[in-house]
């Protein structure tokens, strides 16, 4: 059952903003390094490889304003973040220089996922059963890991921007 109040507390929004900013900072650093070291600077140059690798794109349609429902949006946000945690794990071995920042990114995404889950618990809207994540791509060459990294970071940036806009809206309701 949806709890009485339909909106998100300001403290949760403030904290989410901080966590989203940190994740974005981590990814900017990774993107800059991949561009400088491997000349992979534009995700649009990797659409073909992305299709070939079959990198899943977690849905966020419950968080778009016309269909914005608090519990459904938080749930989809949580599932999407869990999928991104798995995708980031698949990038392990991307390169020794990037590994520390990638580890930090994974921990930051895990922390934000935990923050969302905690908020869902507070609102008593946690799902009964957890979704099974689809098949994940396996990046079998260092080029595919780098290319996969560029695509994943690009999509996670967009995912987070949409998510934060929804959270801000849901905290002003």
């Amino acid at each position, binding site marked *: 059952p949806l709890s009485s109040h339909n909106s998100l507390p300001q403290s949760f929004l403030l*904290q989410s903003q*901080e*966590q989203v900013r940190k994740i974005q900072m981590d990814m900017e650093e990774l993107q800059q390094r991949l561009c400088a070291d491997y000349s992979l600077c534009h995700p649009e140059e990797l659409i073909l490889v992305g299709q070939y690798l079959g990198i899943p794109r977690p849905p966020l349609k419950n968080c778009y304003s016309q269909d914005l429902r608090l519990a459904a949006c938080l749930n989809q946000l949580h599932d999407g973040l869990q999928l991104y945690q798995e995708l980031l794990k698949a990038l392990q071995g991307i390169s020794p220089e990037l590994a520390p920042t990638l580890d930090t990114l994974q*921990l930051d995404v895990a*922390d934000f996922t*935990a*923050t969302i889950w*905690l908020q869902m618990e507070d609102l008593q809207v946690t799902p009964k059963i957890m979704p099974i994540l689809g098949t994940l791509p396996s990046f079998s060459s260092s080029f595919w890991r780098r290319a996969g990294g560029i695509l994943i970071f690009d999509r996670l940036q967009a995912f987070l921007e949409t998510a934060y806009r929804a959270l801000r809206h849901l905290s002003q309701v």
Partner: protein
Amino acid sequence: GISLSASVIPLGASITASCTINPNCTLTEKAIRIVWRLDLEQLPEGWQHQREDGTLESNITLPHLNLTHAVLSCCLLLPGTLQVIEQAELQAGYPPQPPNNFSCIMNLTAQVLTCQWKSGPSTHLTTIFTVKSYKSKGNCQSLEEPIPDCIPRAGEENQCSIPRSQFHMYQKIEIWVKAENMLGEAESPHLCINPMEVVKLEPPILQAAKAMLDPGSSLPQPGCLQLQWKKARQNKHLEQTCDLRYQHPGELNWVLMSPFLSFSPQNEGEHSLCGLHFGTRYVLQMRCIRWPMSGHWSDWSPSLELTT
């Protein structure tokens, strides 16, 4: 061999020892008697007797052991010689007091939660400190998952750092330090903290500033300083408020501007500081704190010396 009532006892307590020397120890026939020694000091005779099978036995009680470390020797007195047959190490001290001043700080650069404490008076015994913690929720009423114990590194007795991968930065943990030795254990008060609420920021950077140019004239505005400040790179994602302080070199008191920066989402910028004496040298420092969410003040930035 020697058997003891206990090898580690509270300082000043009593200890009983018994020594048995079996007959097939060739020396026993010529033995006069068993003699006890504490370190190098011979002790008054213990209760002795010889069993039918020739085993020599002696018991002794030391009423108050006031040495934190001593060696008890069981010797055989023979004509013209004293032979040490067996030794036992004795230790005395105190059970640990609860560690106090227990506090933790989240270090974003090293990505560790570093906890510190003051240990009580010396126990004279090897005392192990262990930081124990649990992931938790709400106000730590329920303990969720245990976090691996944190054992201080050699040389850093009263400090321990937990890597961030072992907890969630935005979730409560219940944490305390336990002191333990052979005579007992004691715990500090338990803290219920959200690591990010105890984050200590890296100090900001105050850069050399150009004396502020008068709009339209080449002379710097009198009594003004143009500051360039930059928040530490590792904290750029945190909303912060910052203080500035300045003083004449050599003077004791600082003039504090608090807040100096607030609500400014920028990570770097310029600021003109006016109302100062003309042609005077000033020392400036800046510090920041996570705000409006809670945290600890950074250290003051390295000093910047400027002349108006």
